[in-house]
């Protein structure tokens, strides 16, 4: 790891000042992603601003039944929170399906949202990677890309966003609150991450000097009947090949409300608006689920090593909705 300046920020104001003062600064949450990447010489911050002591650690119920989650709440704590478990099971399940117990104890909400891709060529400083070094090419396209995207990718980059939690939050219409020296703003989670286009190095809508302070999850009728289904190469401790976060409210056999987001298939948590459109108001039957899944994946494009994910995504959507209809939300 290369030498860097270390700043410990006690509060938000100090932190945002520190990152705006030092171009090339990086925030340190739990450090489980940033530190690894620094060791691999992929991240080379000049200054590391440690925010692990900033008191953004509350999980508070909002008057309307929603939740406000501080950016430094640890993943394991959020997953265990009684309100999350009872009213937003999809979020608890997504968190618990990620990484390992030790990592979740360290990982923060803000860090989880902004963790970088696990593309094998991104983390190997000797490979060509447009995300790491704009214009250098993309070794993943002709190489190993089992983890690669089938939706919204470009010839310049096929990386996926690895977070499980973010997929659940996308399905829950979460909003991210961001702070900088210029003030506070709110960004819908589904707009936080960008698709690669020809600028895969620009991964989010945030400026480098912005700090995530909180995530707000609005109340919803569907959320109580929600689930996270993660398909992966081993039973635990592996990233999603495909994941589905789904929440559904079925009234008299018809879909009154539905939210679906997909993970492992795109550079962002992929909100399945097409599938939702097909489902809303329709009968909650297997045939309709399949139709919805087909509609969502209609534009998917695969490469030899990840083409299977298109059918896998369809099947996982159907399976998750079926399970919700049969068993409800709790795991």
């Amino acid at each position, binding site marked *: *790891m*290369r030498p860097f300046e270390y700043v410990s920020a006690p509060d938000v104001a100090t932190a945002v000042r520190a990152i705006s003062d030092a171009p090339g600064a990086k925030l340190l949450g739990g450090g489980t992603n940033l530190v690894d990447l620094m060791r691999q010489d992929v991240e080379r911050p000049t200054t590391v601003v440690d925010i692990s002591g900033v008191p953004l650690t509350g999980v508070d119920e909002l008057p309307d039944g929603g939740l406000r989650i501080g950016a430094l709440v640890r993943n394991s704590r959020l997953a265990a929170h009684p309100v999350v478990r009872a009213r937003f099971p999809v979020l608890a399940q997504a968190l618990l399906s990620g990484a390992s117990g030790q990592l979740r104890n360290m990982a923060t909400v803000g860090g989880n949202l902004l963790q970088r891709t*696990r593309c094998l060529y991104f983390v*190997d400083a000797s490979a060509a990677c447009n995300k790491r070094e704009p214009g250098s090419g993309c070794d993943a396209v002709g*190489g*190993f890309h089992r983890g690669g995207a089938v939706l919204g990718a470009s010839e310049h980059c096929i990386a996926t966003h690895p977070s499980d939690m973010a997929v659940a939050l996308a399905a829950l219409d979460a909003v991210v609150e961001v702070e900088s020296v210029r003030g506070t703003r709110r960004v819908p989670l589904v707009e936080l991450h960008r698709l690669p286009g020809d600028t895969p190095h620009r991964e989010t809508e945030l400026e480098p000097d912005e700090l995530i302070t909180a995530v707000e999850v609005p109340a919803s009728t569907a959320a109580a009947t929600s689930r996270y289904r993660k398909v992966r*190469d081993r039973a*635990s401790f592996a990233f999603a090949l495909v994941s589905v976060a789904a929440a559904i409210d079925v009234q008299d056999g018809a879909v009154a409300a539905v939210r679906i987001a997909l993970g492992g298939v795109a550079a962002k948590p992929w909100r399945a608006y097409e599938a939702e459109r097909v489902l809303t108001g329709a009968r909650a039957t297997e045939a309709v689920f399949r139709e919805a899944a087909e509609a969502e994946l209609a534009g998917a494009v695969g490469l030899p090593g990840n083409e299977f994910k298109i059918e*896998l995504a369809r099947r996982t959507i*159907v399976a998750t909705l079926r399970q919700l209809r049969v068993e409800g939300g709790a795991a």
Partner: protein
Amino acid sequence: MTQAPERVSPPVEPPVVDSGPVVGRPVDRVDGTAKTSGQARYSAEFPYPDITHAALVHADVARGRITTIDSADAEAVDGVLAVITHRNAPKMAEAPKVSLLDLSTMAAGTRVNYLNTDEVHWNGQPVAVVVAETLDAAHAAARLVRVQYEALPAVTDFAAAQGDTKPAKGGMMGAGEAKKGDAEAALATAPVSVDATYTTPPQNHNAIEPHATTAFWDGDELTVHDATQSIDWVRKHLAIRFKVPAAGIRVVATYVGGGFGGKGSVWAGTLLAVLAARVTKRPVRMALTREAVFRTVGGRAPTVQRVALGAGHDGLLTALVHTGVSAVGRTGGNAEPVGSQSQHLYAARSVLIQHRTTELDMLPNTFMRAPGEAVGSFALESAVDELAVELAIDPVELRTRNEPERSPTDGKRFSRQNLARVYADGAERFGWAARDPKPRSMRDGRRLLGWGVATAFHMPIQLPADVSVRLSADGTVLVRSSFHEIGVGAATAQAQITADALGVPLDAVTVEHGDSDQPPAPMAGGSGQTASLAAAVLQACDRIKREALALAGKAPGSPLHGLRPADLRATGGGLFRADVPAGAEHAGETYADILARAGRDHLEARTGSDNRFRSAVGQARFMAGFLNDRRKWVRAAIGAHFCEVAVDEDTGEVRVTRWVGVFDVGRVVNAKTAASQLRGGVVMGIGAALGEETLLDPRTGRIMNPGLGEYHLPVHADVPRIDVSYLDEPDPTAPLGILGIGEVSIVGVAAAVANAVHHATGVRVRDLPVTLDRLL
């Protein structure tokens, strides 16, 4: 060499003693407390006051020449002591030519003389070493060494290189060929046949302890703490490479955190730590990162295999063809002998077994737990399952019907023959009789269930071992031998064997191991360590008992006066008449009494050979004896695996839900550690079946998943309860009846899983690992 060599421990028919009170029992590890309390020191944990830290710089081309190395920025990093490259490195001698007379000549993982050449032979080869006062400084500076290469054409695509193969050379892993009758012709006319191609990917050992070396020179004397499975090889190899006497080199590896073969050869980390210590004149610690282990320590080679079986409608095999192509490095490595079990396992009337290799510009491969059989059994045992389906014969029945009387390819006798028995036991424990052979016939909700079986087979080796046993007047015993405690419970096993051989309580025995100052032991490999040592320990204990008897025999008042060894049994801390009940008056004497009367404070026996000359001759004789022995007997550990898998019908996810393994491994020395070994092999086999694959980019020869996040070993959630049992009957041809259990249980696991997947889904997967995309 005219002088008569000293007799070394005989490989055949050593003294077989009755199983005593502690051999076989599930006693706790003698080093359990040291390990669980952090007292046991591993190679990277030895404190030296002026320790320095080393880090490697790896090439990122597969083949080429270094044109420039710019180390100025690295040298400028605070705390950096040296950046060693081929420009400034002291010369090391070349690796020796391999000779069967001295097995240590096989120690080198590769012919590449690191940092003594500008040539690059694989993507990841070390091209520089940075030594610094701190680990962080060493790693930071290593990133700053800028190397440029003239890239040369390289062959790095195993699939594309299938057109360019040659017959396998014999070697450490012993890729044998066999031919009996005209198997191809028999195949063509067989009433029922299967003929298919199977592939297995490269794999890496991934022991929990990454390779680490701490090296320290004092003049021409060298001390090395090394995570190794072969202390003696390391010592001899370093003596050659650094041109110093082996006697001045001390290699210490008291505890090693797993090896699986990956710590059997001498790899870059060890050599370069020693080289760096030479340069800096300071103690150097080289604790490899997981990535550096992947890039500098060979793994299991990828294979492409063909298995073709022909049979009559009665299921009896008329033809068995098993051929394989595996990759070797251009600078080292051996053929993966995939057909080795196929020479002995089933009674085929005609047989053809062949191994070929193709050279790649890659890090040389090496042995990994059950080289050959681990992946060869995937092809063979899958094919047998395919044949069972074709014949509509139960796969257990088909295998037992084909159990041979004698080894089909060479007519050798089996030292034990229990295939039918282990299958019968396993079937009973598993409930196999309830199986409906139709694929997709069993389910659990949305999950398809499948049951599969496969045979485990492994021939343990035996090597010469030196031990010393010292019996003190206070009744305590000290056993010394530089063997390897790589996590298997080796010291515990030898303590148990010694306790019974001398008839002393287990806690009277102390075992010292893992230090070249002790009598030399063989490498921990080939499932041979326990039996090899047992032969030497038994012989040493025998000598001690004879000497004690001789001392007692001289004393007219001794109850042992006039008795012969055959009249006695060792028990109760001494020698007692075998024909009277234990505890009877005047039936014998304790060692303490015998030694006290004789005025001796100890008796000591050393077995094996120690000086260099004798050791070479002794080894040659031993090898001759061992090979001769192998000419007579097929001595194999075997087993039957039964498993259940559940396959998600929607997603194709495969989970192993149940496992029963029944083994015949000869006598079991410690029921607890043996069960761990057998279970561990199954776990590792599940890894190979479902997840493990080293991703070698065919364009660049670079390993793209050099870490445990992306190299998918099984995690706890992937492993069901594993029911292991064994026959526990001594093998009449092996020391103490011990066969060796380190490898057998991985063999057949991947096939059992794939066979169960076929039963669950109707899909036959012939390429490992069985990932879900193959089942959609």
